[in-house]
């Protein structure tokens, strides 16, 4: 007789905890063939706001950590993902209906992308910063800093790789993140949250909402305590309205697009700070 499996309850990830939606709502996640897989939490406006509060609270700690430390913490996520490869592959096979080979390729690419971004943490400032030769007795230097809280709509057609491709670059600079997972493919997002919760990423640095991006994202786009909006996975939403809502607080916005890996995705949510230091007379 085969053993009866113990299925997982998929919940939200907010402020380092795994709450259900305060609304009590869930929605069914099905396999590619339509079979029931799980009930995911359907996040509400209040969940989104709670997530922003948690993300804001985490900004000073995460952005204040040394770049070396952030790089190590991000690299450790890749290590933990590596140890859970089989779980992610199984979830992707189930929910996407992908072959094991394709699912494995996606997980491997996602892990490798974490490693790529982790390595940028203590280098990108050297590449995009500057010492500026101003005409005067000043030491003038430009350095990038994180924008703050970044709200992200994850690519909707990818379980893990799409999610990693938008979350990792935002974290590199020291931003904290509220990410709306793929509506249809959210299982990897919650499993990734479990990885984050057991790694050294401080609570609130990444917050994961599952549910309807069309319902949740407007509240994030208009939220005055959100500094950046990545609409990578919002191509099928009324994303122009979201960009218009974001303009009220002049958020930095990335329009929907195919997401790869680039330094540009790191710098998209950074600010250049230029400091003029007066040189004294000797």
């Amino acid at each position, binding site marked *: 007789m085969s053993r009866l499996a113990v299925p997982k309850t998929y919940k939200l990830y907010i402020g380092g905890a795994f709450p259900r939606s305060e609304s009590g709502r869930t929605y069914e996640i099905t396999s590619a063939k339509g079979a029931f897989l799980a009930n995911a939490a359907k996040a509400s406006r209040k969940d989104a706001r709670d997530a922003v509060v948690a993300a804001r609270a985490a900004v000073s700690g995460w952005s204040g950590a040394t770049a070396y430390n952030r790089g190590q913490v991000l690299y450790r996520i890749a290590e933990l993902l590596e140890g859970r490869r089989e779980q992610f592959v199984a979830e992707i096979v189930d929910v996407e209906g992908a072959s094991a080979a394709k699912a494995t390729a996606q997980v491997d690419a996602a892990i490798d992308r974490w490693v790529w971004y982790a390595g940028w943490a203590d280098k990108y400032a050297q590449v995009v910063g500057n010492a500026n030769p*101003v005409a005067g007795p000043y030491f*003038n230097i430009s350095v990038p800093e994180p924008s703050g809280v970044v709200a992200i709509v994850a690519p909707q057609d990818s379980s893990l790789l799409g999610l990693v491709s938008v979350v990792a670059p935002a974290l590199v600079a020291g931003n904290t993140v509220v990410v709306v997972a793929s509506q249809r493919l959210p299982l990897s997002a919650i499993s990734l949250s479990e990885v984050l919760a057991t790694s050294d990423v401080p609570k609130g640095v990444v917050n994961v909402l599952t549910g309807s991006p069309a319902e949740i994202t407007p509240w994030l786009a208009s939220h005055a305590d959100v500094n950046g909006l990545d609409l990578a996975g919002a191509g099928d939403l009324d*994303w122009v309205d979201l960009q218009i809502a*974001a303009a009220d607080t*002049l958020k930095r916005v990335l329009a929907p697009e195919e997401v790869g890996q*680039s330094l540009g*995705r790191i710098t998209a949510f950074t600010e250049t700070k*230029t*400091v003029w230091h*007066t040189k004294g007379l000797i």
Partner: protein
Amino acid sequence: MTFLDYAPAPESQAVLHLRDEYGLFIGGEFRAGGGTPFASINPATEKQIAMIAHANEADVDAAVAAARKAYTTTWSKLSGSDRGKYLFRIARLLQERARELAVAESLDNGKPIKESRDVDVPLVAAWFFYYAGWADKLDHVGLGASPAPRGVAAQVIPWNFPLLMLAWKIAPALAAGNTVVLKPAETTSLTALLFAEIVQQADLPPGVVNIITGAGDSGVPLVGHPDVDIVAFTGSTPVGRAIAKSTAGTRKKVILELGGKAANIVFDDAPIDQAIEGIVNGIFFNQGHVCCAGSRLLVQESVHDEVVDRLKARLSTLRLGDPLDKNTDIGAINSAAQLERIRTLSDVGEAEGAERWTAACEIPANGFWFAPTIFDNVSTSHRIAREEIFGPVLSVLTFRTPAEAIAKANNTPYGLSAGIWTDKGSRILAVADQLRAGVIWANTFNRFDPSSPFGGYKESGYGREGGRHGIAAYLQGATK
């Protein structure tokens, strides 16, 4: 006769040869506009300087079409070194006509000639020299090999530094290989039109630079034009917000340099003489018509009385009056509308309980003037501590600890600039790290340089002008 009395030393206007009326500069030639022309007046006398053409939508179409044609047929095909040579030519012509441009700027804007002569115009030339050299070195901007220009840039600039803002916009755009349509503010079109003459003298291919004049009704169709690839705007946060909304969904590259409410933080160990001069320069430079002005003075409690007393003494020596007089420190407010806004907010400051002090100086009979004013005992909730006044009005707040100074400095939706005054280097570094602002001056204020990126955090906008960052914005990066 006191030591403050002085003989007038007006700069000669003989160097200026203005026309009675100016057209739009489209496709390398001046032409009449479709709208009703308007007068540009001297804010110090309220007398008319010249009639300025008013661009309507058809004119905007024509200007964008000229820019597109120039982009496709000539400018994008030129080598970087040839683009650079054109920009070097412009830089030299600007230097050669520097005195004329300074006089025109002071006449039209109201700023003291010593500022237009020693700050604005030299920086304008420096900006073109700096970006001229970038034109054939785009591989080194940091976007990978051979980054492509974006196309046609729509550029809308404010009235506070008319020619300097033109240089900030046009120089990097052209160096990167774009063509431009630029609209100056309606009260300060003059130097942009003189610049158009320089463009002709430099023999720039027609349509690479187009200047259209007019008010918001000329700017809106320009920003919204479907054949525009870049929108660069410097001005108020409300207009910047409207531009961000109107360009949403278009995938136009948008660069916004908006308002500010900078904190100028003075610690008790600050070099006090330099700090007083820096505070004065921070808020009274250009009549306070400066988006990065140090309009909130945060002074450590223990030195508050000394700083405020010395500030008042220093302000009492400032000379307000004829912008063309070489002795003048404070010129005219640029327009009646701006003067009204400064008056309104200052009245609100008094009504909300802050202590008002105004320098005793004679106000000329005609023109728009506002004497240097300090509000003491301002609290963070006062409107004069939150809203951009854009005039010669300083709000004074106090703090006890560095942490309190940082919290108060960051307590604003703006994030353009900030100042730190202290003798302690390690404190400068620590405080600068914590301030959420794009430009920070330590033991100085209001310094600008073409090699130094300038731009804001938060609701002060996005994108940077100046330096390597400034040209990167006008190029297509390898992204995503």
